């Protein structure tokens, strides 16, 4: 349960990090908070020859508010979001979700960017960001580029990020005052990865009525117009969406996702701040 041998570098900016990574000829790995990569290296599921630690890059901690968008630096920790140390454009949704990620010792180190780049389908950020429809800011050898939410996650543990690219931050649209949200996850044990996730973001002023079925095989399933589940509860529509999300009727997966979706919808009907 010890990591295999590797070389370690700690650059101070992204350009240097990319240059160092490129020397590894594809055998390197970027390290953010290390709360997934650390265990995977200890278990030798991953054996990079070079670890490029992004922890020394101050720019990746920068957060800024630009009008209707907030950019969170990739190295923002779950705990910083939980504690309200960074701007929250989501009217409480992000801090609330952050507070139930794993355990405090993990949240103190784990980062938004690391989690999104790792892209575990059952993790919180890939699902929440899909519900919020964010954009992904990327530093690549050729310069910077932006990846849309729809293009980000290609499957479990697979994103549109090329191996030498670095996710530098996420651009999150602000919810308006009239927005409602809910997020429900089912875990077998507190702090474990979710068995099922469901979320709603209802922001009529921005014409957003989005639903999400998450912790499924592959990328989260987004319900672009979830009106039938927001104005009352349309059971047939819910069934259609669960099937479209890849659930097979009368299975454990179908049932827990159906329950998560219904519970998320129910908590949303409460006034603003719809916590589960």
């Amino acid at each position, binding site marked *: *349960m*010890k*990591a*295999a*041998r*590797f*070389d*370690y570098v*700690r650059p101070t900016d992204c350009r240097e990090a990319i240059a160092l990574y490129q020397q590894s000829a594809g055998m390197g790995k970027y*390290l953010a908070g*290390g*709360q997934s990569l*650390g*265990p995977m290296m*200890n*278990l030798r599921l991953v054996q990079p020859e070079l*670890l490029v*630690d992004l*922890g020394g890059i101050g720019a990746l901690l920068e957060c800024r508010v630009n009008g209707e968008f907030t950019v969170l630096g990739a190295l923002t920790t779950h*705990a910083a979001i939980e504690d309200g140390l960074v701007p929250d454009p989501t009217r409480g949704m992000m801090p609330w979700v952050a507070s139930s990620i*794993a*355990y*405090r*010792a*993990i949240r*103190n*180190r784990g980062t938004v960017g690391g989690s999104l780049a790792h892209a575990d389908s059952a993790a919180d950020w890939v699902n929440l960001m899909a519900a919020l429809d964010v954009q992904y800011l990327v530093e690549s050898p050729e310069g910077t580029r932006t990846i849309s939410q729809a293009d980000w996650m290609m499957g479990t543990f697979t994103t549109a990020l090329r191996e030498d690219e670095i996710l530098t931050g996420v651009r999150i649209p602000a919810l308006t005052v009239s927005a409602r949200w809910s997020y429900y996850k089912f875990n077998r*044990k*507190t*702090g474990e990865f979710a068995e099922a996730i469901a979320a709603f973001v209802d922001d009529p002023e921005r014409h957003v009525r989005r639903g999400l079925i998450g912790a499924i095989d592959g990328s989260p399933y987004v319900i672009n117009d979830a009106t039938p589940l927001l104005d009352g509860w349309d059971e047939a529509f819910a069934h259609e969406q669960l099937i479209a999300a890849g659930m097979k009727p009368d299975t454990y997966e179908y049932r827990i996702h159906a329950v998560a979706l219904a519970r998320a919808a129910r908590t949303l009907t409460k006034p603003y701040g719809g916590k589960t």
Partner: protein
Amino acid sequence: MTLLELTVNGKAIRAEVEPRTHLADFLRERLLLTGTNLGCEQGVCGACTIMVDGRLIRSCIAFAVASVGSEVRTIEDFDRDPVMQELRTAFSAEHALQCGYCTPGMLATARDIVTRLPEADDARIRQELSGNLCRCTGYVGLVRAIRRVLDARHASAIASDTLRKGPLHGN
């Protein structure tokens, strides 16, 4: 080998380490601070929980090289810490430990609960303890021990407040 400079329990440390050495192994094998225990070595059980720069972390999934410049505090450094003194007494009184293997990590997490969440109710204490696995004592004693410290600190806060402002009078 990489040169590592950091502070451990108030002492400046300079050492050559292999990048693959995790912080818990560095503390235990190189500095002989064996109070930090290793359980799962994959960040799940919480036995290796320590404080780095004032925050709880898992030392089994943190590489020592990545801790350059950090201030590390292990269980050995908490001998004279007032909160930890209260917790140790409460752990004994409430039978919050049996074999003791999870205890260093439990105490670190318990101290974090007491200092960060003074208003925590029992459900919150349980939630916060969910990242530290205890397989022999059970959580009833652990929750009670932390409850006892929180209650005692509330009582003494009220008492000192009353002393400062004088007794309350109805109006």
